[in-house]
């Protein structure tokens, strides 16, 4: 057994994997109860329209149908607007089932409950929804234009959020100004398990709800609010969750409706999305238009940044404010940008609502800055590495007050950049690129760099530790891990600090009946917040144990020490010692402590990612050759878990850069509602990732940790995008929006050709 000294920082095997690998893990779709009913939603097939009528009689009369509900038969409060705390704007509310108006294809209009799933599916097709179509608006800039069709006429505009940061004149004093117009495209989170929920009445009047969620306590609050019940009468459990990536951090209409149905019908009800439904009903991520100008001096020193970020909200101002505000906060990234003039706008359109998706605003800000750095370097004819070096914040500048109001904790950005360049062999790759450009090879080589900083771990989290007289250790966390490996990390922290074997520790989470309070797992928060909450609770347990030992050993508590084997003894008398379990037995019950760890200003993980791509200029196909990722997430508890998080994030970043985009036709019909049309990549598109790290502890929590859940997606997308543009630079290409799919790349090559000749004009 690893001893305490090596336990933190050790690649302990994940305890989460065996049930997942052997198929014994239970997801919402696996939950069964006698008399389970099945809910199927009837969804709008029209992007924008007035809801004239919903005819349910035929469906309700079909065999196996228990009930059919519309908004009028199942009155539920609108979903809470985010962020909470601001005065709610009732006119912008998001109903659980559409009333009067539908605003996107996929919006739930009615729900059919059947005794079998197939009965409910068939009956859902028999519900007739009469919608009077209205003009649609899909592009956020169109939505902001005068005379655009309005989604919320009472609001008077499709602009639902606006925030100004800094002051005008950010570019004053610049010797050179470069400008960019970028679109960070809308993508779908695509967890392998779609959304799902089940609920049933339990003993004592309690309603038990199960959901594929990242935040059970949030969902409990929302269900209690929607049903007008005290929170204590609602239990929410997140069983095994097959991925969330932020998209399952909020509350969905379908979850509240499922709970309401179970309450109303007094029977178990389950709802599980199909993949195609998931592509419509689960939030999408990203979707930001950026109009940017970066001012600098001729030597490459940045003077100021002026930008407008228009974040799509989709049909409702629901969880889109998360990426809206995070991209604002991270707008100046790792660079010393003295002056910022930023306009952030949120616009509603007739599309699936936007929400947080891995990175949630951080990748948007990073891609914007990293593209601007490249444009500046090209303008000044400097190597972009040099431009970065001149502008990266230095370790001595922390804590750093960014112009957005963010307070960066700690960092050594240049060290991560240097390490990534060394891992890559930057000079060799550039030399190879030069050779390639000399030759007549149709395959160009491109190198792309992204230096970034992101924000993680805001708010607070609950943790508790209990040493039982039998020797087992129970850890409770308010976080809701769902694949990340947090249970292993918390086990390591508790076992390491208590000096007990890992096998004695179990972690309880994701059940509001077993954990008194908590928040959840999102925003790269859990390792640091739950970890420090547990660490603090362990310290209290150790303190209590020392006091108990002092009584038992008839010594002064100050003279009692914990030995390497975890037991307590009087200093200098190791032969008489008492273990933790023994102390609990003598105390007549468990030794426990709990703690809520809060970290209001968050921590700032950072790193440098570098991509090498080969671009076939004849077909436009991009082949990712290498992806080097150097990440700094402060103190590392388990390097294997950190690497796992980086791998997943990097893959999703690459996916955005090269493959994925949610598309609609002109009338707002989604075109990418399955994984054949939505180019979700697989391992076949990924190279072996080359990881490295630097370790700059955060001063904001005792363990010195920062988050690592999202950085992969933050850095990799921008690095790959830069690499593609770099490969195409001999063709005069200065920018290419993502995804760099073959056609888009080929067009860029083609349109960028200096001779301006269309080689196939004769045939097209």
């Amino acid at each position, binding site marked *: 057994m690893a001893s305490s000294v090596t336990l933190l920082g050790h690649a302990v095997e994940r305890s989460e994997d065996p049930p997942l690998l052997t198929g014994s893990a239970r997801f919402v779709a696996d939950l069964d109860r006698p008399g389970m009913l099945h809910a199927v939603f009837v969804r709008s097939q029209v992007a924008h329209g007035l809801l004239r009528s919903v005819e349910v009689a035929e469906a309700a009369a079909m065999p196996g149908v228990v009930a059919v509900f519309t908004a009028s038969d199942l009155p539920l409060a609108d979903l809470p607007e985010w962020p909470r705390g601001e005065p709610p704007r009732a006119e912008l509310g998001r109903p659980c089932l559409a009333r009067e108006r539908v605003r996107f294809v996929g919006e739930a209009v009615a729900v059919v409950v059947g005794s079998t799933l197939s009965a409910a599916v068939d009956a859902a097709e028999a519900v007739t929804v009469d919608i009077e179509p209205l003009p649609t608006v899909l592009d956020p800039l169109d939505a902001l234009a005068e005379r655009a069709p309005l989604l919320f006429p009472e609001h008077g505009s499709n602009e639902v959020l606006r925030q100004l940061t800094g002051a005008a004149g950010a570019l004053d004093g610049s010797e050179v100004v470069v400008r960019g117009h970028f679109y960070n495209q809308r993508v779908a989170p695509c967890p392998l398990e779609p959304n799902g929920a089940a609920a049933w009445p339990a003993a004592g009047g309690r309603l038990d709800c199960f959901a594929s969620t990242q935040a059970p306590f949030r969902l409990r609050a929302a269900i209690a609010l929607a049903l007008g019940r005290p929170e204590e009468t609602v239990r929410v459990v997140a069983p095994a969750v097959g991925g969330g990536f932020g998209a399952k951090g909020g509350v969905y209409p379908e979850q509240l409706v499922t709970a309401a149905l179970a309450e109303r019908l007094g029977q178990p009800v389950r709802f599980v999305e199909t993949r195609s439904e998931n592509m419509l009903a689960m939030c999408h991520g990203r979707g930001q238009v950026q109009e940017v100008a970066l001012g600098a001096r001729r030597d490459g020193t940045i003077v100021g940044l002026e930008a407008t970020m228009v974040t799509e909200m989709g049909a409702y101002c629901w969880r889109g404010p998360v990426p809206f505000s995070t991209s604002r906060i991270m707008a100046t990234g790792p660079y010393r940008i003295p002056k910022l003039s930023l306009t952030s706008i949120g616009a509603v359109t007739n599309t699936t609502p936007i929400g947080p998706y891995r990175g949630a605003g951080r990748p948007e800000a990073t891609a914007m800055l990293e593209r601007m750095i490249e444009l500046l370097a090209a303008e000044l004819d400097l190597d972009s590495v040099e431009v970065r070096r001149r502008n990266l914040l230095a370790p001595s500048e922390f804590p750093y007050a960014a112009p957005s109001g963010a307070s960066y904790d700690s960092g050594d950005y240049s060290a991560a950049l240097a390490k990534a360049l060394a891992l890559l062999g930057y000079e060799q790759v550039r030399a190879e690129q030069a050779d390639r450009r000399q030759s007549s090879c149709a395959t160009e080589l491109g190198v792309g760099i992204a230096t970034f900083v992101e924000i993680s771990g805001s708010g607070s989290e609950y943790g508790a530790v209990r040493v039982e007289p039998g020797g087992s250790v129970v850890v409770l966390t308010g976080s809701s891990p769902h694949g990340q490996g947090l249970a292993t990390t918390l086990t390591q922290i508790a076992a390491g600090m208590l000096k007990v074997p890992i096998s004695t520790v179990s972690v309880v989470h994701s059940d509001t009946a077993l954990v008194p309070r908590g928040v959840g797992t999102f925003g790269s928060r859990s390792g640091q917040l739950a970890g420090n909450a547990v660490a603090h609770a362990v310290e209290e347990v150790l303190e209590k144990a020392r006091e108990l030992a002092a009584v038992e050993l008839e010594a002064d508590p100050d003279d009692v020490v914990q030995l390497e084997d975890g037991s307590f003894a009087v200093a200098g008398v190791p032969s008489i010692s008492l273990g933790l379990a023994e102390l609990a037995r003598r105390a007549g019950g468990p030794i426990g402590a709990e703690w809520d760890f809060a970290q209001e200003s968050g921590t700032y993980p950072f790193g440098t990612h570098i991509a090498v791509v080969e671009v076939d200029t004849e077909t436009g196909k991009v082949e990712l050759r290498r992806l080097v990722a150097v990440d700094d997430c402060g103190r590392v508890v388990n390097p294997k878990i950190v690497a796992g998080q980086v791998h997943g994030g990097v893959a999703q970043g690459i996916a955005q850069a090269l493959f994925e985009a949610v598309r609609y036709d002109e009338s707002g019909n989604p075109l990418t509602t399955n994984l*054949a049309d939505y180019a979700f990549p697989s391992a076949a*598109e990924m190279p072996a990732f080359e990881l490295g790290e630097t370790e700059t502890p955060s001063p904001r929590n005792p363990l010195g940790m920062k988050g690592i859940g999202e950085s992969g997606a933050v850095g990799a997308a921008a690095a790959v995008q830069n690499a593609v543009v770099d490969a195409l630079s001999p063709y005069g290409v200065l920018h290419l929006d993502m995804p760099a799919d073959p056609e888009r790349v*080929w067009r860029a090559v083609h349109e960028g050709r200096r001779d301006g000749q269309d080689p196939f004009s004769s*045939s*097209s």
Partner: protein
Amino acid sequence: MLVPASLDELLASVAADTRADLIAGGTDLMVEVNFGRRSPESVISVALVPELKSWYRSGDEVILNAALTYSEMMRPPLCELLPALAQAARTVGSPQIRNAGTIGGNLATASPAGDTLPVLAALEATVVLESAEGGRAVPVGEFIVSVKRTSLAPGEIIRSVRVPARRAAQEFLKVGTRNAMVIAVCSVALVADAERREVHLGLGSVGPVPLRAPRAEELATSLFDWDEGVPRASEKELARLAELASEAARPIDDHRSTARYRRHAVGVCARRAFERARLPDATGRRSVTP
């Protein structure tokens, strides 16, 4: 749902219920059903009919039975006899789809993006149809009449596909948005037949049906060194070959790609397929250097 265990039984069932849908691997049919685009009243399975399984050689032809799966196309010795078909099969879907999906299903679906179709076009395959009344053989170009339309008559099934097994160079290239599970934006199959000394090109996803490119074929035939078994062409001739292949395409714009890109890419693929083509020697080995 009926699951006949012999060809006779199958033909009798189909004759008795000409409106029934046939199912082989179900990888097209069930997608239609799941998306509510088709709701069959009755279904007859061809998957367990022994006469429709596997393949065999007959003289200088290979007979591919209708229920031959992609996984079977990828295995030796068939993959050595028909390398372009094996290459096409490797690009289809995922292992699950390749284990279930069949050549008969691909033909009957007649999607412009069907991956075996350009190969069968370049091989000048013959589709063998059968009904309770008897059989008939039609060239693949006549079997597929338009987008998702075939000349299969009510009561008829696809029994097999006949292709030549002559000494030939074969290539298949596909452009799509990713490496696995990808629907072709365009594809090209090339067959350089050493006995007839002819190069054939089949173009996929660039027209309502798989297309041939007669002018490009003519040029390619003249540029191929039939004695050495390798292509011999200048940069300019290769460019012309690509251009002629592009000209043969009749692509459309859809959400996967524009016609313009498809037309261009199919030319690049044709040229590359030609550049890669190597005739095998008598032992079946292909020379490496031109």
